[in-house]
Each structure stands twice: as structure tokens, then as C-alpha cells.
């Protein structure tokens, strides 16, 4: 725990972290204000709240994670203190796992803040009416067949943020892996930001513009990349559209996949972290 707190102290000493917090807060407030009055009555308000992650939650999380995490794996190398750190008995292992732990905690805080603020702000406008009522199929919610209720509105809302957290972890360790490979936080920032923007642009604009093998490759990258999981699209695996009733029973597949990818990223980072530099 002490080592994770040390990573937190390093994190708050980075100037770009505070710039990210200010800009992120500004973006979140603007998004809440913009989407606050988009729907009129209670049954559709829950439908509106289910879209929050896709509308602005994913962008907010990506921004804060990329800004806050990009420097964490290459900071010691930049300051030339990694050599000193690695001479201690358990320095290499403790430093590595404290970074992994800090990144997981940071991602959790980002998602928790996002979820809490957006659920409270949106729910307050209509008094959380029908919070424990089952999802109204007539509102055309994602992943649920019309008329088939699977869980209460509020529970589903919170559950979506758990799914977002898995996607954010996928992104977090991807950024850390990139910064470890490139040894430059700016490059890791640029690459991960561009990958996310291109993925989202493909989902919004480019689905009809590609064909043949290009479309298949783009679909695979979208479905299995972190952007798809953060937008919650990749959790509707195997089928597209809101009219399938096996979403819950099939949900374990994408969750298992993203957990395996996260473990793979951590293992790859450990291999790169523990290897000796070439002379």
C-alpha cells in the first residue's frame, strides 16, 4: 500500500496530471449541461442515462487515463533512477506491482467519479423515478429485447460502469505497455489517442465506407480493441442490434476475453520491465 501511495505522489507531481484534471472536469461539466435536458419524461430518462457512457463517459475516461498514466512506466528511466531502483533486493518487483496497482486504482477512481456524478446529476432531475423498476423495453434500451426485463434500471446503470471499468483497464495497461516500449510518454499518448479516435470515427462514420477485407479488419479491430469495450459495443458479442435475448447468458465471453487481454498485457509488461538493457 505504501508503494502505491508513493506512485500516487509521483503522479500528482506531474504537471500534465493537473492540466488533465482541470480539462476533464471542464469537459464533464459541459457534457452534463449539454445532455441534461435531452429527454422529457421518466421512462426515457433511464434510456438517456444508459447512453451516457457512449455520449461522453468513454471520452472522459480515455482523456484522463492517457494523460495520467502515460508517464508512469517510463518516469524512472527519464530521470535515470531506474538503475538505482533495480540494484535493491526487491526494487524491481515492488516498483512494478505498485505501478500496476496504482493504475488499477486510478482507473477505478476515474470510472467511479464519472459514474457517481452522471448518475446523481441525471437521476436528480427526475427524482430517480422507477429506479428499482425493471428496464422498460419500449424505451429501446441497449442489449435487451423489447419487453424482456432483465434487471432494475439503477442496477443496470451501475453494471454498465463496471463493464466500462474493464474497458478502461484494458486501455490503461495498453498505454503503460506503449510507454514502456517507446520510452516516451508523448509517443504513447499520441498512439493511444489516435487509435481511440480512429476506432470511434470508424464506428460513427466509417461503417458504410469500407468493404471487403478492409471492412472485416476494421470490424475485428473495433470489436476486440479497447475502444469497443469502452463504448460497451464489444460486450454485445456475436450479435448486433437490440433484439437479442441471450445477452446476459453470453456476456461471460467478452468479459473473459478482456480479462485475458489485461493479464496478457501485465505479463508482457513484466517481461519488458525485468529484462536487462543491452550494453
Amino acid at each position, binding site marked *: 500500500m505504501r508503494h502505491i501511495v508513493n506512485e500516487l505522489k509521483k503522479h500528482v507531481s*506531474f504537471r500534465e496530471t493537473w*492540466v488533465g484534471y482541470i480539462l476533464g472536469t471542464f469537459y464533464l461539466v459541459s457534457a452534463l449541461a449539454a445532455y441534461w435536458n435531452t429527454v422529457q419524461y421518466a421512462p426515457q430518462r433511464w434510456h438517456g442515462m444508459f447512453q451516457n457512457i457512449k455520449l461522453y463517459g468513454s471520452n472522459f475516461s480515455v482523456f484522463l487515463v492517457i494523460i495520467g498514466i502515460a508517464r508512469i512506466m517510463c518516469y524512472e528511466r527519464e530521470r535515470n533512477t531506474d538503475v538505482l531502483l533495480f540494484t535493491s533486493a526487491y526494487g524491481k518487483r515492488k516498483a512494478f506491482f505498485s505501478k500496476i496497482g496504482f493504475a488499477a486504482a486510478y482507473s477505478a477512481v476515474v470510472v467511479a467519479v464519472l459514474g457517481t456524478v452522471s448518475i446523481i446529476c441525471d437521476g436528480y432531475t427526475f427524482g430517480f423515478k422507477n429506479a428499482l423498476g425493471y428496464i422498460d423495453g419500449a424505451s429501446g434500451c441497449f442489449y435487451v429485447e423489447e419487453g424482456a426485463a432483465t434487471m432494475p434500471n439503477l442496477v443496470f446503470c451501475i453494471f454498465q460502469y463496471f463493464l466500462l471499468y474493464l474497458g478502461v483497464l484494458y486501455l490503461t495497461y495498453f498505454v503503460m505497455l506503449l510507454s514502456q516500449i517507446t520510452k516516451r*510518454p508523448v509517443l504513447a499518448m*499520441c498512439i493511444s489517442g489516435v487509435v481511440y479516435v480512429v476506432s470511434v470515427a470508424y464506428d460513427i462514420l466509417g461503417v458504410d465506407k469500407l468493404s471487403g477485407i478492409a471492412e472485416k479488419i476494421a470490424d475485428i479491430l473495433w470489436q476486440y480493441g479497447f475502444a469497443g469495450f469502452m463504448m460497451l459495443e464489444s460486450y454485445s458479442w456475436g450479435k448486433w442490434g437490440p433484439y437479442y435475448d441471450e445477452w446476459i447468458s453470453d456476456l461471460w465471453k467478452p468479459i473473459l476475453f478482456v480479462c485475458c487481454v489485461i493479464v496478457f498485457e501485465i505479463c508482457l509488461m513484466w517481461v519488458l520491465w525485468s529484462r536487462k538493457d543491452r550494453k
Partner: protein
Amino acid sequence: MPDVGAVEQKGQKMIVELKRYLRAPLYPLGLAISVLIRVVLTYMDMKHREDTYWEIAADYWDTVGSASFALIILAVLIHQFSKDKETGAITVINSTRDGRIKLYFRRLAAGVIMTVLTVAILSLCNVVTAYCFAPDVPVPDGFTRMFVSRTLIALLGGLGFFLAASFVCDAISNQMAAMSICGLPFGLSFIINVIVLDKFEFEWFVRYGFFTELMRGRLIYSQPVFWCVWYAVLIIGLFVLSIYKRKERKQL
């Protein structure tokens, strides 16, 4: 009679700064990736959109061109303004005769030259790529005038964007923070729908207020005089901030 030796020395110092930019590995990498994306998109345009092929080529700065241009500026061109602090060489450089304000203006000038060079390279690659993939598709009348005018507007926007971003980077001495401060309004401008905008509301400022529209090769027809004054005030204000922070750090 100007001192030829002094002019030659200044020219050599400028060449040193330009070489630093050109030797940065990210610069050719950024250009290469931008050209590669353009090649892939041109191939798909040739296959599926032959009737509007040259119109799409003329519209290069609308998305791919402006995005890659902004990325090169933020990732490469402004880095010189924070590199000294990152490498720990700032105290040594500050102690030299020309290591303060003269070096600052020299780097700004070198960055402006690199911005012009980047626009030239990107636009040349766009035209060459378009012509190589479809030499038989007739070039419509007015393509040259349209593309040149959009390129010049993109250059104007790019110069303003570079100056603003470099002033921010120099003031806070942190490239990543400068990338966030300048990149976020640039990126948000792409997703704001201009049709539903009212003048002088917040989204209107975000859409037009940070060089994105110019870098996309478009002039701003909504209150153009206001935006001329806005951009002048923005650039001068950021420059004053940069000088003020330098004075605080005793780097003038």
C-alpha cells in the same frame, strides 16, 4: 555595410535549430504515417468513389491533413520549447550569452519554417498520391485554384496553431500538458455540428476559436472580423504569458 560574419553566424545557428527538428525521429515518422493513411484512403477512393475522386483530393485538409498536421505540431515542433528542462540542460543553456531570449526567438523562427515545410510536404504528397493512383481520371477545372487556396488557409491556421501551442509549451515547460491544452479544443471542434450553432454561444467559440477551421482549409464566414481580432488577441496574449513566465524564471 552589414557584418557578413555576424549574419553568417546567425544563419549557422538557425541551421542548427532546423537540423534539430529534422533529426527528431518523430518528424519523418509522423509524415510517413500521414502519407500512408492518405495512400490507403486514396486507393479506396479510386475503387469506390471515382466520380468525386479529385474533389476528395482537394478536400485533403478537412480531416486527414489537418489532424496529421496538428499531431506533428504538437508531438514534434513544440517539443524544443520544453526539451531543455526535460534533459536538465536548462541551467547550462541559460548561462550562455545567447541562450535566453535570442534562442527563444530563433526557435520560434525555426518552428515557423518547419511548419511551412510540413505543409509543403503534406500537400505535395497528397497531389502526387492522387495522381499516381488515378492518372486517367481527368482533373476538373478549378482544382488547382481550390487546392492551393485551401492549402494556404491551412498554412495560416497551422502557423497560428504552432505559435499558440509553442507559447503555451514554453510558459508551462511541459509538452504533455501543452498537448492537452491545445489538442483538446482542436479535437472538440471536429465533433461540433455547425448547423445547430448560434453565434456567441459556448460551442460556437469552441468550433471556431482555436484554428481548427483554418487548418481544415476553410475560412470562417460567421463574424470574420470578430475572429481576426480574437486570433490576434489570443496569440498576443499567449506570447505575453510566455514572456511573463520567462521573466519569472529569469530567462529573458
